[in-house]
C-alpha cells in the first residue's frame, strides 16, 4: 500500500496538469465554435 503515498500526490499533479492543458485549449479558441466540427460533414470538399 506504500505506493499510495506516491500515487495520490501524483493524481493531484495530474489533474492540475489536465486543467493546464484545457486552459491552453480554451485560450487558443478550440471551444469558441464547437458546432463547427459537427458541421464538417455538410461541407463540399
Amino acid at each position: 500500500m506504500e505506493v499510495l503515498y506516491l500515487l495520490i500526490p501524483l493524481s493531484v499533479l495530474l489533474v492540475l496538469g489536465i486543467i493546464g492543458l484545457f486552459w491552453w485549449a480554451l485560450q487558443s479558441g478550440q471551444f469558441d465554435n464547437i458546432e463547427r466540427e459537427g458541421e464538417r460533414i455538410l461541407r463540399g470538399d
Partner: protein
Amino acid sequence: MSESSAVQQSGPVARATGGVADGVHRSDDLFGQHRGPLVVDDDFRVLDDPVEQQTFTQVVDDGGQLLCESVLMVQGMYCAACADTVEDALSGRPGVVSAQVHAATRRLTVRWNPAETRVSDLAQAVGRTGYRLLPMQQALSVSQRLAETRKALWRLFVAGFCMMQVMMYAWPAYVTEPGEIPADIDQLLRWASWMLSLPVVLFASGPFFESAWRDLRQGRVGMDTPVSIGILVTFIVSSAATFDPTGPWGQDVWFDSLTMFVFFLLGGRYLELKARDRTAGALDALMNRLPEQCDRQRADGGFDAVSLKRLAVGDVVRVQSGQAFPGDGVVLSDGVTVDEALLTGESHPVTRARGEAVVAGSYNLAAAALVRLERLGRDTRFAQIVALMERASTDKPRLAKLADRIAGPFLVLVLLAAAFAAYYWWQIDPHRALAVAVAVLIVTCPCALSLATPAAMLSSAGALAGRGILVRRLQAFEALADIDTVVFDKTGTLTQDRVVLREVRVAPGWTVEAALQAAWPMSRASLHPVSRALAVAAQGQGAVAEPAGFDDVRDVPGGGLVLTGPEGAVWRLGSARHCGLDEAQLLADGLSVADTPCAYLSGPEGWVATFVMDEGVRADAAEAISALKASGVRIRLLSGDRLAAAQRVARQLGIEDVVAEATPERKLAEVEALQRAGARLAMVGDGLNDGPVLARADVSIALGHGAPLTQAQSDFVVQSGRLTEVVQTVWLARRTLAIVRQNLWWAAGYNAVSVPLALVGWMPPWLAGLGMAASSLLVIGNAMRLARTLPPLSHTPTR
C-alpha cells in the same frame, strides 16, 4: 439542458444554424424569403469609407505586418454549408489572410491586408456567390462576449475536473467501515481533496462571492448570499477538520459536496450565458443594415453619394422614392407623400408641402424629393423617441426575483436552525455543539433552491427558441406569468401594416376586373399603400398585361395619380376631390362607404369605381384576443392612429378600452397611469413609437417584423409575428412559474427533512452529498418537462 431541448424541437437544420436563429429566416426580410442565393447588386463602396469602418474593423499587428480585422454579418445564410461557400469565396483571394464564418451567429471574421484589397472587393466577391456582407455594428461587444464565455467555460472546467478527482478521493470513505482505511492514508486523501478544492473555492466560485458582496453592500439578500455562506462555511470547516481532526469543528470533511455543488451551479450559469448569447446573436442579425448612403447636393447643383455619417446640418439631400429621410428637415420640393407609420403608428401616409417639415426615419413614398436637413443624429425626433425609450426602461418597475425574495427568509431560518442546534447540543455535549451547528449549515445547502428558477426558465426559453420566439431576459417569465392586462398596439400589431382592398363598387357597364385593369398603370407606379393594395389586387385578377399606349403617370402630392392616355384622355386615381367627384353625393347614392378609407377612379366620363379599403385585421387576432380574455386577462388598445380607425378595429375584435391618437409620450403616460393603478401589464407592439411603452411595461413582447430597435429592447421577440404565439408565450410563462414553485417546494421539503437529521447529529457527509445531488437532479428533471411543447391554444390554463 435547454440546448438539447432546442435540438429536439427544431431538428437538424435549426441545430446547424444555432436553433434560436432558425426563426429569423422564416419571418425577417433580412434572412427571410431568401431560401436560396440572394441577388446582390450593391457596390459596397460605402464600406471602404474610413468613417464607416471604425465600427466594424480594427487594425491588428500580425508579426510586424499591419492587417485589418473586420467582423461582418453574412446575410442570406441559413445553414452550415453556407459558411463553407462564403469562406471559399474569400480564402483564395489576394490580400485575404484568413476568413472564418461562425455558422450559428452568421458572423464572418476576416483578416485582410489593406495594401492589397478593400472591403468592398471582398463584399462583392461574396455577393457573387449569393450572400451579402453587412458591417457588424457591435463588433466590440462581440469580442467582450467571447471573453466572457471563455471565462465562464474555464470556471466550469476547473470546477468539473476538481470535482471528479475529489469524488474519487471521497469514494473509499463511502464504501468502507470507519477505521478500515489506515489513518495516514485517510489523512493523505483529505489533503489531496483539500488541494483540489482550493481552486474551486478561490477561483471557480468567484461569481457567487462577487454577486453576494454586491448584494451585501446594497443591503439586500439575494440567492447568492446563502450560496456564498454555504461554500465558505463548508470549506472552512472541512479545512479545519483536515488539519486539526481533533478540534472543535468535528472531523467530517465535505469537499465532495462542496465541489459538486459549485459545479452544478456553474453548469446552470453557463447554460444561461449560452442562451443569452444566442438570443443576442439573433438580435444582432436584425440590427445590422448596410450603412445608408444619401445623395448630397453640391454647390454646382450636382449630387454626390455620401455616407449618412458625413452629412451636416444645412446640407441639401435628394431622397429617392422608397428611401427613408436621413434627418429632420424641410421639404424643398413641391410636396411629398411620406409614411410615418413607424414613428407615429398612423396607418395612412401624410402629405408635406414645400416648406413643411419631415422627420428622420419616415419614408418618402412618391417622387424623389429635395430636403434641407435641420437636425441630425441625437437631435432628431427619432432620437428623442429612442431617448424616451432609454429613460422608460430605467423607470421600469423592478420585480424582485422570486428566488431572491425567498433567499432572505431562507437564510434567517437556516441561521436560526444552526443557532438552535448549537444551543441544544451545548447542554448535552459541548464538544459536538459546533460540529452539529456546522452540519446544519452545510446540509441546508441552497443548491436545489438556486437551480429551481434558472432550470425552469432555461427549459422554457429552449422550447420557445424552437418556435422562433426569442427570450431576451429570462426573468421576464416571472413578470409575464403574473400579468393581468395586455396592451396592444394597432397598426402592424393587430392589423397588418398595409391596407387591403375590401370591396369595389363600379359604374354601370364596368366590371371589377375592368376597373382594376384601368387603375393598374397608375397603381403600379406608386408606393402609396392604397396603390400597392390595388396593384396587388389587380395582379390577383391577372391584370398584369402591359397597357399599350399609356404613358406619363403623374403624382399629385396629397391627392392621387393622374394618367394621360394617348388621345388625351385623363384618368385619375385618388381622393374624391382629386377625381373631381362629390363625395357626399356618392355616399348618398350608396356608391361609397362612410368611415372607411376609399379611393376613387375617374375617367373621361366621370366616376368609374370606388375602391373600399380595409386595414386588414390579422387573421389570428380575434382568436388570440378571445383566448387571452378567456384566461382572465384584460385587453387594451393603445394606438397612434385616428380614433375612428382604432375603434373600428376594437369593435371587430371585441376590445372595450381604446386610446387613440396617442403620441409616444402620451402612450407612455397612459401606461404609467395604469401601472400606478396597480395593473401588471404586458405590451405587444412593433413600431418605434411603441418603443418607450415597451421599455416601460412590466413585460414587453415585440413582433418580428417591427423596428429593429424596438425588438432589441423587448423581453420577448415573436419572430413569426403570429399573435397566437404571443398567447402561447403567456401560457408557457404561467406553466414555467408553476414548475418553479414546485421546484422551490421540493427544495424546501428536502431541507425540512435534512435539518432534523443534522440536528440529531445523524447526517454523515456521504448522505448529505447524495441528498444534494438527488434534489438538484430532480429539480432539473422537473424543469425539463417544459421543454417538450408549447401549450396548445385550445387549452386554457388558470393561474
